[in-house]
């Protein structure tokens, strides 16, 4: 196995686990020289590049393994209807298949070793939550509560493991299941009751945006400080979302073609981003040289104001909270989520 450019490493699938009918986990073997880079932290994700003939097959998938417990990294990929990479992985990857992965990254990690955790996960959002939870249970004495939301037991990823943990840990883990098929969606009343009964807990959540918005709003209502609520904006391939102005009929959850208007040095230009192209890549493909350097979301050269539209950014370490609050994005990372965008370098 050898190293690929851009920090990616060629990994071999060592084991495939059927988690649910729509979801598989893939345990990976890394080249010895890369293992130290991939130590990572529970809750982080890997960028994965599928070796297909199609372009733009890079996605981010959370580690479902717990790096502090498990020797080999494991990613869990649920099929997304129409998703190229999720379906390719589930259909194609077998033991000894190869994919390219980049070292773990991300900010959805355990933030305190002194505060008990209240975790809400919906669907495949269980992936990073599961990783962090196992670390909490193995390395701390903190009380832990996990609320897992799925349509049915058959779709609940890691269910059997979680039930075993609840049994074996004898009350240390409070594991609450909510099946929407039987009970309907979780309501604000449900969430407020859970938060109210667990004052002083840090709140972690991962799942579809409306679900996380509900959790965040209810936790806030119950007095959980904003800085103790941790979200992983878990849409495949996404770590940060930005919505500005009027993005249209709601930001899409999959790749879209976007018409981009850009103002730079007093001039305005327009181009089209194809599905899966970043704002920067689309511009360069159209012959428009926008400022950039590292193309990895680190240097900040491509920072630009998003005036209108919605994007998500798989990596966003080169952008500060202040810049995000001002509506800035990293063009090299921003994938359009609305059919039109306006960005302004002169702002």
């Amino acid at each position, binding site marked *: 196995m050898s190293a690929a450019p851009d920090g990616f490493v060629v990994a071999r699938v060592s084991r495939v686990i059927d988690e649910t009918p729509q979801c598989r986990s893939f345990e990976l073997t890394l080249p010895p020289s890369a293992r130290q*880079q991939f130590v990572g932290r529970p809750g982080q994700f890997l960028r994965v590049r599928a070796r297909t003939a199609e372009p733009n097959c890079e996605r981010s998938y959370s580690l479902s393994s717990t790096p502090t417990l498990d020797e080999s990294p494991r990613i869990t990929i649920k099929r997304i209807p129409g998703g190229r990479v999720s379906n390719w992985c589930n259909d194609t990857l077998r033991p000894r298949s190869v994919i390219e992965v980049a070292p773990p990254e991300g*900010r*959805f990690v355990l933030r305190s070793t002194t505060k008990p955790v209240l975790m809400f996960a919906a669907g495949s959002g269980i992936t990073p939550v599961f990783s962090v939870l196992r670390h909490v249970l193995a390395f701390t004495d903190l009380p832990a509560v996990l609320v897992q939301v799925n349509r049915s037991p058959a779709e609940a990823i890691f269910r059997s493991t979680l039930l075993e943990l609840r049994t074996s840990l004898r009350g240390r883990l409070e594991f609450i299941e909510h099946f929407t098929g039987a009970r309907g969606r979780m309501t604000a009343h449900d969430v407020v009751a859970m938060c109210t009964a667990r004052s002083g807990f840090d709140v972690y959540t991962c799942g579809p945006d409306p679900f996380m918005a509900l959790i965040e709003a209810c936790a806030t209502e119950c007095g959980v400080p904003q800085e103790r609520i941790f979200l992983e904006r878990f849409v495949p391939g996404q770590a940060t979302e930005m919505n500005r102005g009027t993005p249209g009929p709601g930001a899409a959850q999959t790749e879209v073609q976007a018409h981009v208007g850009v103002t730079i040095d007093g001039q305005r230009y327009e181009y089209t981003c194809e599905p899966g192209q970043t704002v920067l890549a689309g511009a360069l493909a159209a012959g428009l040289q926008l400022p950039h*350097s590292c193309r990895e979301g680190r240097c900040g050269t491509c920072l630009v104001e998003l005036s209108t539209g919605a994007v998500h950014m798989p990596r966003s*370490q080169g952008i*500060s*909270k202040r810049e995000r609050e001002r509506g800035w994005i990293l063009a090299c990372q921003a994938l359009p989520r609305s059919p039109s965008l306006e960005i302004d370098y002169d702002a």
Partner: protein
Amino acid sequence: MTLVGRVDSLWRYPVKSMRGERVEELFISFSGAYGDRVFALYSPSADPGFPFRTGREQEDLLRYQPRFRFPEAAGRPPNLAQADAIAPGINPLFADRESFAVDVVTPEGQVMALDDPALVADLNARLGENEEISLVYSQRSFTDCRPVSMFSLQTARLLSEELQMPVDERRFRANIYLDLDSDQGFAEEELIGKAVRVGDKAVVSPVERDPRCKMITLDPETGEATPRILRHISAVHNGYAGLYAAVLVEGVVRPGDALTLVDEL
């Protein structure tokens, strides 16, 4: 030997991303300038390959002024004179961590010990987050890439002309600011691959141009960002400004020291 310029000023940054201090002498070692970036803020949520909280994530860090509590102890290796007396190449000892104790003046003028939990709380409150960042210490400087950085006044002047705005050379957070005999900006790049004696003993070898990031967009006093500085450098100067250097011979350097090309060591 060919004289190419002189040292204009010397800086070190006791805490990574916090404000620097100008010094009248600086011991440059194989692992960095003495007392430079000996402390950093470790962030558990940052990329493991670069696990720090820096001005990229929190611009306000530049408004915090660290000061060594014991300036003499933190000024040069404690047995430097004795080591030099044995032979010029004897490696001196570095002082212990206690000798490098730092106090930090916050933007509001409050003075706190660097290892005071209240300082982390102050930083987190300013950022609006409550991450458990921790202090890390190393005798080897927590620079981004290479042990020593250099930047010429001439480059700063050229950038000021190109950008039509004053460009404070402190934005570039170099250790050694050069006043070169050439009046051309970016002339320091001609030193790459050469051996340069600084003063009468230390020798450095610039190894590469310094690839820039948004740190240079931050005003050294206010932390306010001017992104077009980085965009300009990216567009016109391929993203580089200044030099990274390795240290071939350790030694004390001072403002005014001659910079001479070395034919043989």
